[in-house]
């Protein structure tokens, strides 16, 4: 077995379910990998570990990150996109605003640093949000709950649940993907070296993860959830159930292209379209060689399609 590690962007949670599933049910092992998942956190920088070769794969939130890497001449490549849609949403108190565009009338938006550097820059140039509106989100929703005139970022799968339970109201949800931020999310990146030297490892990890996701969403996620809860004892079963439900409802993992091409799929068209949008709104400079950003060699093999078929009894 080849030992590899995968750095995530947050503490163990259902949004990482596919990977834990593949670890727990031996999918990675079946193709020769012994995968260790390295959890992230708000101040944790697993990406530095990727660049330093301390982890082999890293989870990136959206495509802007890989764009920057290529811009800086760093040989990082995206090999799969396990979320077809960006699950980031903006939450507001019920009935405060009517549309995504109207969010900019709110005096305070709690947005984390990563969000501020990525989609919020796009919101600024595309819709006219301001930097002054933004207040750092420290992953504690209390200030948002306290201030009815504010909005807050969140994962559609996570924050609304906590807020509804503790804050006692059901927040309005504005999905930024629906507003035009059409990036893939939860991308798997790796160094070019790894692709060149161990393509079979990359293939195994990407396909194994896709199968893991299929099993997690459509099969029995018990093993994966147990693993998640073992590594993060604070994670409640209700929260996990809610997350899975939301991922399904919003088609986060499996919708659009992936229905045809399998979980993890990417298309030139989507990436180019997103890039052009970002160039238009000035978030990123034009002239990037997109072929350096990603490769479709591993993502579009449709490895998860038969698994899904079996599970759904089609």
């Amino acid at each position, binding site marked *: 077995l080849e030992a590899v590690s995968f750095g995530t962007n947050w*503490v*163990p949670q259902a949004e990482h379910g596919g990977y834990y599933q593949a670890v727990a049910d031996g999918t990675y092992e079946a193709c020769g990998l012994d995968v260790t998942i390295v*959890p*992230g*956190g*708000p*101040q*944790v*920088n697993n990406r*530095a*570990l990727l660049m*330093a070769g*301390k982890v082999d794969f890293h989870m990136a939130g959206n495509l802007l990150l890989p764009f920057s890497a290529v811009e800086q001449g760093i040989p990082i490549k995206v090999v799969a996109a396990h979320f077809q849609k960006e699950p980031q949403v903006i939450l507001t108190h019920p009935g405060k605003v009517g549309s995504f565009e109207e969010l900019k009338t709110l005096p305070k938006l709690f947005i984390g640093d990563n969000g501020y550097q990525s989609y919020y820059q796009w919101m600024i140039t595309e819709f006219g949000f301001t930097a002054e509106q933004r207040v750092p989100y*420290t*992953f*504690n*929703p*209390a*200030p948002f*709950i*306290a201030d009815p005139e504010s909005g807050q970022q969140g994962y559609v799968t996570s924050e609304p649940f*906590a*807020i509804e*339970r*503790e*804050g006692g109201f059901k927040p309005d949800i504005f999905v930024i993907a629906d507003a035009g931020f059409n990036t893939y999310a939860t991308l798997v990146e790796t160094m070019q070296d790894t692709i060149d030297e161990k393509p079979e490892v990359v293939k195994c990890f990407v396909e194994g993860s896709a199968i893991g996701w299929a099993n997690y969403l459509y099969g029995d996620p018990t093993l994966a959830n147990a693993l998640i809860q*073992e*590594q*993060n*004892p*604070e994670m*409640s079963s209700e*929260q996990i159930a809610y997350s899975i439900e939301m991922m399904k409802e919003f088609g986060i993992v499996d919708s659009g292209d992936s229905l045809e091409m399998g979980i993890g799929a990417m298309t030139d068209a989507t990436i180019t379209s997103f890039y052009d949008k970002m160039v238009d709104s000035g978030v990123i400079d034009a002239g990037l060689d997109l072929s350096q950003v990603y490769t479709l060699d591993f993502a579009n093999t449709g490895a998860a399609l038969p698994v899904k078929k079996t599970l759904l009894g089609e």
Partner: protein
Amino acid sequence: MSVTPETGLVVDREEQARARRLRNERIGRWVLPILVVVLTVYAWDRICVINEIPHYILPRPGLVLETLIKDFPILLSALLVTLQTTLLALAVAVLGGVGLAVLFTQSKFIEMSFYPYAVILQVTPIVSIAPLIFIYVDSKIAGLLICAWIVAFFPILSNTTLGLNSADHNLRDLFKIYGATRWQRLRFLQLPSALPYFLGGLRIAGGLALIGSVVAEYVAGTGGIGSGLAFTILEAGYRLNIPRMFAALLLIAGTGVVIFMALSFLSHMMLRKWHESALKREG
């Protein structure tokens, strides 16, 4: 004016007053702080109630206490993890701080050349260089220690250096005359002279080692098993389990106060025989 010997019976008013004052002081020394704590907690409670602050922003003290008791097993194990880092970091900070201070007082050259690097370490944001540390340090514990150490060592270095340089000049002359070696001067003159300053630095460093450990846990992201209070706070905040978050904060605060009191006591014990700051005085 007259000074007369003991009369046995005539204990005048002044003396009675003094005795009363002393007694009050002895009692007040314990009663007042407790009273202040009680008042603080009460004020906290009232503020929550009067301003209708919801429990997910600032929970009422009763709720925090309840949570503290209910979640004690979780909190305790997190506290122990953090405490371990803290104490180790403090120990390393003492060694490093005093060691560097001694080195720096051995030669102006060394001091001029290397003190800036100590300052640089002090002002470097841990959050920014932690990734670099964790890239090259494989052991997570070692990484945590380095981070906490960087936060805590400077006050000890700075105060000890000041103390080593504050040795009485006449005594220095005496040591010179008696042909004391560098090491003897250090051991018998400069280190004792520096003791009050060092202990002052230590009391500052105690708190910093704690906060440094917490910050280090944030950046190291010790998720999962064996994670400390930082993780508890983060996770509780994220899950909006604010009472637990406050219980954890309370635990940190309490730990800080206990560390401070322990170091103050240590300081008092080491100085009470001779140093002005620790001498008991009449009047």
